[in-house]
């Protein structure tokens, strides 16, 4: 069994900063990197190491566009929140992009996803339109849920996006139910559910670990471990800091991976999906990542020194992706061209959302119940 020897250990804020890993650091030009890949599959599973095949450059370019679109949308949303255009709680995923993008590209049309209220990146990665997504966050009528769900409830069933959730870990059993539906119907759909490290300490998470493992549900648990449950580091909340040890106690296969590298995420989720589709049951993936912005818009961020955030900026998903593209021979000019295109696309999306009308007051009273007169007849 190979454990991540440089996985995040506790102590001080300084200790929490991701340690440099020599090999990966060399590859990315001496940048600080998170833990190397540790694929600890249960003894019953023969695989001990995750193979990470190089993805075609075309795919990496697509993933770069997607990750950048997420980043720029999040930044636009934070700006809009500062202008007072967005109320309530809004949680951005700046720094988390690779987890969603790598996973989405590893799964198939027809698969299901549920996620936490930090779910904008999953929404876009699964194909939601940025204009309608921003409109939803702003509470406008062109939002996916007509402005009723907002930032914490991204949903788009046509893309398999079955809902983000405002309650920590509540979306996890929903994904298990989607996986159960697939299993009962004999389909080969899998479900993936995203949550943060903080969700590990909700009871329903452990209930779902147990049932999913026992029933061999085609389910992928994906923990985006950004080291903070909202404003509190894990060493203040748990005496076990290696998160993947929890699901392992329920008899589940686990992997701990670098969540900032789309290729690694893609490989891990592909492998988990393969296990799920072949009837081998759920896999728990811990993607080590880092949230570069606050927990929510307006977070004072008193719980971490600015130097820690600065250090992480050297190894974040877009930096990693750009360095991969450069190494593949995609030129700076080509990348700058993509940057401009995506920037324009997000500008248009914001303009679309800002022009979207407010919902009609009558909309308030719709969708409480399905009009089921027909089914009662």
């Amino acid at each position, binding site marked *: 069994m190979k454990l991540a020897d440089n996985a995040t250990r506790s102590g001080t804020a300084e200790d929490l900063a991701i340690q440099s890993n020599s090999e990966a650091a060399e590859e990315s030009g001496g940048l600080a990197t998170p833990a190397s890949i540790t694929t600890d599959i249960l003894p019953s599973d023969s695989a001990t190491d995750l193979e990470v095949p190089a993805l075609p450059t075309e795919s990496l370019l697509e993933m770069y566009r997607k990750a950048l679109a997420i980043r720029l949308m999040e930044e636009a949303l934070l700006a809009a929140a500062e202008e007072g255009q967005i109320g309530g709680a809004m949680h951005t995923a700046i720094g988390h992009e690779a987890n969603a993008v790598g996973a989405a590209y590893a799964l198939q049309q027809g698969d299901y996803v549920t996620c936490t209220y930090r779910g904008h990146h999953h929404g876009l990665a699964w194909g939601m339109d940025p204009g309608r997504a921003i409109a939803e966050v702003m509470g406008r009528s062109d939002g996916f849920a007509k402005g009723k769900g907002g930032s914490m409830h991204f*949903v788009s069933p046509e893309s398999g996006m079955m809902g983000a959730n405002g309650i920590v870990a509540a979306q996890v059993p929903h994904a298990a*139910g989607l996986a159960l*539906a697939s299993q009962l119907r004999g389909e080969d759909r899998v479900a993936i559910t995203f949550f943060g490290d903080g969700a590990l300490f909700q009871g329903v998470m452990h209930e779902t670990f147990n*049932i999913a493992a026992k029933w061999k549900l085609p389910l992928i648990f994906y923990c985006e471990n950004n080291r903070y449950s909202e404003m509190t580091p894990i060493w203040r909340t748990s005496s076990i800091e290696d998160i993947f040890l929890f699901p392992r106690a329920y008899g589940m296969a686990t992997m701990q991976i670098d969540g900032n590298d789309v290729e690694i995420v893609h490989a891990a989720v592909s492998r988990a999906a393969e296990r799920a589709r072949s009837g081998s049951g759920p896999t728990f993936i811990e993607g080590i990542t880092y949230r570069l912005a606050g927990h929510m818009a307006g977070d004072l961020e008193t719980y971490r020194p600015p130097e820690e955030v600065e250090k992480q900026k050297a190894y974040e998903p877009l930096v990693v992706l750009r360095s991969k593209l450069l190494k593949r021979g995609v030129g700076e000019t080509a990348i700058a061209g993509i940057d401009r295109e995506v920037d324009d696309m997000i500008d248009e999306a914001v303009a679309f959302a800002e022009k979207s009308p407010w919902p009609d007051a009558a909309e308030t009273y719709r969708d409480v119940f399905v009009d*089921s007169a027909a089914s009662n007849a």
Partner: protein
Amino acid sequence: MRRTTYIQAINEALREEMQRDENVFLIGEDIGHYGGLFRVTRNLLDEFGDRRVLDTPISEQAFMGMALGAATVGMRPVVELMYMDFTLVAADQIFNQIAKYRYMTGGLLKVPVVIRGQQGGGKHYGSQHSQSVDSLYAHFPGIRVVAPATPYDAKGLLKTAIRDDNPVAFLEHKMLYFTRGEAPPPDEEYLIPLGKADVKRVGTDVTIATFSYCLHQALEAAETLADQHGFSCEVVDLRTVEPLDTDTVWESVAKTGRLLAVHESYANCGVGAELVARAYEEAPYLLKAPARRLGMAPVSIPVSRVLEAEVLPWKEEIVATVLDMERR
């Protein structure tokens, strides 16, 4: 018509709906191999197999949430809570998720989950196994609340609930399980729409609006009031608390001029308080005397049968309250 038990009627409704629609499945604790703590799901595992009748670990939050997930893609889970008191264990999934999911997703998804199980006092189970949760469920928009009092109603309403595209809390009562009543044989299908009250006893002096086991207490009270005091009670069985069929109640009150609402959930902020408030808002001109409500006293439910009898709003209390209303 044949006579059957309340338990048998529910078992038949489940069986018939599982035969009719392969998306219907049962999920809960001890419902398969054991057949349910109260034997409501007996024999269904044998007939439908363990892919339609799923025994779960004791994890109410997880299997409630799983029902939601499965329902959003067209399955029709029927979740058994061994005691409806465990609603409170699964409260986030029921009230924050299932009841709100359609609304929060702007109507993109529907959640046809039935949450069923028994509630109520009378068997000395104490504070955490005797509560009535009808008023609690009714407080939240987005979920139907059904509480049948007879085998006939239980079967017809449960079949409708399973076919309904909305979440439905289907509240059985532990005192009713072995009661008998008339119901058509299994090959004669019938459905009862949600939101239609049923006048179970015709009368002229006072309207008693009630549901679930309290209906039977009200009917006994009406008997006593007729025999010993010459009062004629009309007893309206609401059958569903959401939707609440106020039309039928107002029609009755138009005749009697008096309204008493009775239920076993707490009187405080309960269904009865709601019905009385609506009477004053919507039809005050019908009332010849102040409308009243009876419910559980504001204490946890004690085990001792003497103490439990004290807090339950049953026959004696109904008789006393009607007499008090008649004096005014």
